[in-house]
């Protein structure tokens, strides 16, 4: 009897603990495009006649010690705050090794690992929040100083959620790595203060996501069709959004017959069952609403991290 009671207690405690946790965003420090290109860590390619320059992170980490120092210092300080970060260099290595393993792997019947072009496109180092890092060395005579910029960008809403910037005290004696370490130490608390405010806002007003609705071109209907209720399909979707977002907060940025874009969508951190909610979990509600009676619209749900989801109408 006693054992049964203890077991029940443990199970209840476990369930409560798992329900009490919201989905934690991943954060990664990335050297900015500006820093990479200025310092020669970039790649060029021809995109249908247009020259495109993109940062080469692998080269930067292999050849520049300062970037490793700065990233490592930030990672260390964030871990100290109880928020360990995803490491860009390690993530890139892991992606490479996964790709090599997948290329070599075959099933017992001789099949290869399936990979769609979208899967290939999505195979890159990513995080929910990017800490974009830029610094420049200023020289005035024998004195050196570091100008430091750290920006926290939400990968889905593209909003800057935190920032810290400034120029350190000029020094004749200190080496650049020392100045850089000082800059990180001086700015990280301010950055974290703003990040904390962003998280507090998230818990108070809901997670901000982006939801897109798209239509397959071989579907017989579109968002202006009135065959699914009293109003146009687009309007019915908007009504659902009003009822299910946190305090009805969302903006319809675009609405045409073939697409709808909802931005600044605030979703509750937990659903009615007390489970943590992200963009996919929220969009699943709309997906079920569209797919179920009486509308019976065939649709497909695709997610992008914690903060972005797309529903394609008219098929899988």
């Amino acid at each position, binding site marked *: 009897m006693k054992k049964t009671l203890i077991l029940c207690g443990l199970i209840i405690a476990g369930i409560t603990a798992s329900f009490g946790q919201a989905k934690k965003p991943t954060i990664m420090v990335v050297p900015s495009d500006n820093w990479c290109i200025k310092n020669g860590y970039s790649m060029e390619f021809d995109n249908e006649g247009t020259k495109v320059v993109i940062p080469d992170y692998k080269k930067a980490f292999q050849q520049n010690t300062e970037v490793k120092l700065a990233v490592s210092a930030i990672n260390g300080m964030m871990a100290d705050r109880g928020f360990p970060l995803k490491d860009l260099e390690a993530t890139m290595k892991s992606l490479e090794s996964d790709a090599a393993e997948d290329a070599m792997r075959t099933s017992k019947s001789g099949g290869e690992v399936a990979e769609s072009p979208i899967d290939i496109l999505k195979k890159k180092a990513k995080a929910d929040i990017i800490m974009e890092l830029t610094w420049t060395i200023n020289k005035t005579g024998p004195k050196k100083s570091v100008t430091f910029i750290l920006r926290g960008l939400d990968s889905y809403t593209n909003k800057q959620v935190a920032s810290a910037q400034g120029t350190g005290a000029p020094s004749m004696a200190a080496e650049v790595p020392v100045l850089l370490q000082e800059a990180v130490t001086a700015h990280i*608390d301010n950055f974290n203060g703003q990040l904390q405010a962003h998280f507090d806002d998230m*818990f108070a007003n809901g997670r901000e996501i982006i939801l897109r609705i798209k239509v397959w071109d071989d579907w017989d209907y579109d968002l202006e069709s009135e065959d699914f209720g009293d109003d146009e399909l687009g309007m019915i979707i908007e009504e659902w959004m009003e009822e299910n977002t946190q305090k009805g907060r969302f903006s319809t940025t675009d609405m045409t017959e073939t697409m709808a874009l909802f931005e600044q969508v605030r979703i509750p951190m937990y659903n009615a069952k007390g489970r943590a909610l992200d963009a996919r979990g929220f969009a699943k509600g709309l997906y079920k609403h569209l797919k179920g009676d009486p509308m019976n619209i065939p649709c497909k749900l695709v997610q992008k991290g914690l903060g972005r989801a797309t529903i394609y109408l008219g098929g899988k």
Partner: protein
Amino acid sequence: MKNTIKKAGLLAMMFTAFALTSNAQISKTKKAQKDTDAWKYEIECVGIGKPGTKVIKVWSYSKKANVANAQSKKNAVHGLVFQGYAGGGQGCTNQAALVTDPSVAEQKKEFFDNFFELNGGKYMKFVSHSADSTPEIMSVKIKGYKYKVGVIVTVNTSALRKDLEAAGIIRGLSSGF
């Protein structure tokens, strides 16, 4: 007999001297405690310390210079918890207060009364006098205060923050996740 009286007298004198010294010490502590109750101080950043620490100069006010000096550590920790400071020279950036909601001081009064207890309060764990710091004493003409004493101290803000997080006074970055 004469010898015994002599010994007893000597013992009584020593006891009195000891009592007076400890009384003075208690009185000094009490004065410092009383002066700190008003939280009359100013803090400024004087440089970038090691990661997780802040090097600040704290100006404390009192009727006696040594009392002001005694309360400097306590004021420094209080300043970082409730005030923060503006940036300045030496690469200093502005530092927000660890407690962003001012009403927390009142809500958690009992915690902070114990935390800032001048005799053995927990605040002592997070602050130390800077090794090369000599107190800077200035005379002031403010009602109730005669001296303004500036002392450079190092505060371990990382440990201080963790302690306040553990006590549920402030939220950690990963709270709720």
